[in-house]
């Protein structure tokens, strides 16, 4: 077929429909965006209050700390907008929607990510980017071309890292919602599986992985590199330059975990 549309056009159709559906009810959409913005605004206000009273934290002064926080917020909010719907995996498994997705000639992960691309979540990313612009004006960065490149790369890599975590959290669900596929086979529709309480687990898990494990890479280390500060023992500052590599590696590992999860669901072993 010469003029067969591309796979991208498939995702574009899904995304377009999602966006139209979200903006169809303008009033509620506007309120949601406003609510989200207010929420993120509060987070920034909180940080401001903390650092206004504490002069230095973990060896960084207020300005540097703000940069750490803002960089990580940009990365996180971008990832949340893109891959936040990975939360839905347990529900997709229980309701059987996952199986409907598997009957379509598209990648499973691609479908889940695009199924609920939340415009309102990108509102936070916009706010975080705005704050970043302000912070950069007050932080004395000794600019070089390499540092400019790092500044551009950091939010992207941060988004990749957090996206990887969302994907891993989704993949883990295939183990947590254990037995759902088996019960589905016998109950049809899986209403019984809804009695599992696996949904309580991912939140603390996510919090841990979101804010503890990669935080150094998405905020702290790039800040050290940007400001030319020395790192603490065991965490050399040059690691900050490796942020893009870390993002790519995390994403790669996450995709492997996802594949293993899907294989577990289909019962292919692994």
């Amino acid at each position, binding site marked *: 077929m010469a003029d067969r549309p591309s796979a991208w056009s498939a995702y574009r159709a899904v995304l377009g429909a999602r966006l139209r559906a979200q903006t169809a009810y303008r009033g509620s959409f506007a309120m949601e965006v406003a609510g989200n913005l207010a929420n993120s605004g509060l987070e920034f206000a909180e940080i401001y209050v903390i650092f206004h009273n504490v002069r230095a934290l973990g060896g960084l002064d207020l300005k540097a700390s703000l940069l750490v926080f803002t960089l990580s917020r940009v990365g996180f909010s971008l990832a949340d907008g893109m891959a936040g719907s990975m939360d839905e995996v347990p529900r997709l498994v229980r309701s*059987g929607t996952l199986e409907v997705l598997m009957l379509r000639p598209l990648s499973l992960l691609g479908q889940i990510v695009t199924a609920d691309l939340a415009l309102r979540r990108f509102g936070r990313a916009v706010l975080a980017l705005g704050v970043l612009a302000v912070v950069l004006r007050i932080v004395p960065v000794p600019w070089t071309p390499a540092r400019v490149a790092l500044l551009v790369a950091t939010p992207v890599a941060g988004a990749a890292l957090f996206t990887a975590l969302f994907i891993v959290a989704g993949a883990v669900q295939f183990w947590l919602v254990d037995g759902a596929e088996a019960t589905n*086979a016998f109950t*049809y529709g899986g209403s019984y599986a809804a009695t599992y309480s696996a949904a309580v687990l991912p939140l603390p898990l996510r919090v841990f992985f979101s804010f503890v494990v990669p935080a150094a890479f998405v905020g702290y280390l790039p800040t050290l590199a940007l400001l030319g500060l020395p790192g603490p023992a065991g965490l050399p500052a040059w690691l900050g330059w490796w942020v893009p590599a870390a993002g790519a590696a995390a994403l790669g590992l996450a995709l492997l975990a996802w594949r293993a999860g899907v294989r577990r669901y289909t019962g292919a072993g692994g």
Partner: protein
Amino acid sequence: MADTRADTAGTGGGRDGQVAVEVHDLVREFEVRRSVGRLRRAREVVRAVDGVSFSIAAGGSVGYIGANGAGKSTTIKMLTGILTPTSGTVATCGLDPVRHRRRLARRVGVVFGQRSQLWWDLPLAESLRILAAIHRLPPAVWRPRRDELVERLELTEFLTTPVRQLSLGQRMRGEVAAALLHSPALLVLDEPTVGLDVLSKERLRIFLREELTRNGTTLLLTTHDMDDVERLCERLLVVDHGQLAYQGNLAGLVARVGAQRVLVVDLAEPAPPLDGIPDTTLVGLEAGGLRQRLAFSPEATTAAAVLNAVSSRARVRDLSVTEPDIEEVVRRLYLSSGR
């Protein structure tokens, strides 16, 4: 295009498009964990599908029947690449379903009666447009096909209504259109008529019948509705406890288990028991003989002949005929096979 590896291990069925589904010695086990006592958990292996072999010729229509939990859905999931078999081989449209899930998805249309593939908050027209994009159909291909389906399934009046506002019958027609938009070679319908009213069921059957003959589509249907089987399926596969209990046509199944239809007659005035009518058994007597039930085998006699014989002995005011339902036939089959 054809897979070069996976399906050659099968039963040697043709790979030139003559066989739509080829299943050989298919087994699927699930590990079920149960709590035993406070901390210990026992692992138990359950065989949902236990050594099933069958094949469906391209263009054939097969009813896949069995009690809930007999292994129907599990089999369908293995045929469509959702589940990997524990052992045995599956070839659907000549492809290994799990390895070639996406390629297979272009050739198979599936309707799960109890889950939707439509977007709930979008109108049906929009869902069809998205599905066309997902299947990467050029407009010159999908637009005429959509128009045809819209017309034949009578979707026009609710095409722009969000799916969640549709009645079950309307939604089911939408689901069928969605599954057929990419003109699949194999159509899998899992309980398509469940919950529909008589008229909707009938309209859907007429449409499906027409679709199968028009496009040579292969049909695999699971149902609890005897009429679905009668109207849509040339052949039946009955599964029980994961194993095939019967393979053949409906008449053969009914003959084998001796399933009977029941003629219920309401009489104008109470009459003595209508026993001794040829080829019937009197199975019920109500209201002092005002309502009587006569069971008969469709092979031995007809409802008309029985009615004639009854009319010669009493005045009939009203009547109905009850068909043996699938559950009943299957139960009898299980009994006859000594389960």
